[in-house]
């Protein structure tokens, strides 16, 4: 129970931060990404605040033997750069600029019932499921080839 309260509270603070910072305003996001218009640089400072706060505390936290409510830390350790990372991130950036939403702000905005936020979140989930299905099919063909080779 206390674990769930802690998770809920973390996500709540995350959402408040998205709202205060301007990330839930899709027009502001588009204004930030559009370098040819009346450029609004403010959102660059979201990264400054967020990375500052997280970087300052990350080592202190992960130097502990374990997190407070779980047995161990689950931090990604991969350091290889593959096409999947680059193409996926490239697609994400295109979609972010097309709609003005990234996943967190879109989910938080969905509670307003605004059509754009709801359409974005619905399509986001479809896109994720589409990738999962495509990836599964691809992995299946790879393993079949492996068996026949």
């Amino acid at each position: 129970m206390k674990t769930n309260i802690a998770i809920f509270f973390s996500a709540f603070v995350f959402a408040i931060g998205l709202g205060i910072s301007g990330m839930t305003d899709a027009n502001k996001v588009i204004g930030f990404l559009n370098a040819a218009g009346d450029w609004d640089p403010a959102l660059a400072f979201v990264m400054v605040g967020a990375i500052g706060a997280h970087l300052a505390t990350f080592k202190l936290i992960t130097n502990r033997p374990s997190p407070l409510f779980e047995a161990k830390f689950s931090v990604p350790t991969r350091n290889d750069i593959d096409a999947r990372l680059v193409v996926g991130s490239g697609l994400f950036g295109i979609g972010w600029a097309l709609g003005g939403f990234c996943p967190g702000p879109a989910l938080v905005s969905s509670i307003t019932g605004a059509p754009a936020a709801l359409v974005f979140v619905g399509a986001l989930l479809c896109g994720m499921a589409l990738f999962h299905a495509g990836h599964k099919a691809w992995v299946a063909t790879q393993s079949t080839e492996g068996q026949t080779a």
Partner: protein
Amino acid sequence: MSPMIESIINAIIGGVFIGAAASMLMLFTGRVAGISGIVGPLLQPKSGDVAWRLTFVAGLLAGGVALMAQNPAVFASPSTRSLFVVGVAGLVVGVGVRMGNGCTSGHGVCGLSRLSIRSQVATCVFMGTGFATATAIQIFNGGVL
């Protein structure tokens, strides 16, 4: 205070909340606060791995409700994009974040904070294609799509 300065101060304060929230989740559960990495696996549920993800999403939505009650002006739909384009955007983001294993939160905030090389590359790429896309829409279509 000029609107730009105020906007920058809000961005920094909001950013500190986001970074602090990511640190809290790491301290409490040892997990990375990447939104797409938390939400995505809910579509391929594994037993024992669903409840905490739903709890996180519930916290995000509750935060949205609190924001709506305090200051609904923080929310705005894209006035320069049609609903169709927003739908295409969602689809492209959905495929992209699962393919690239992260979005603005997982790579941009959490990954950069632990100096992950994958997240540095991912963030440079999505910032690059994001700027290129919005700027191209401005140049070739007057900023509207």
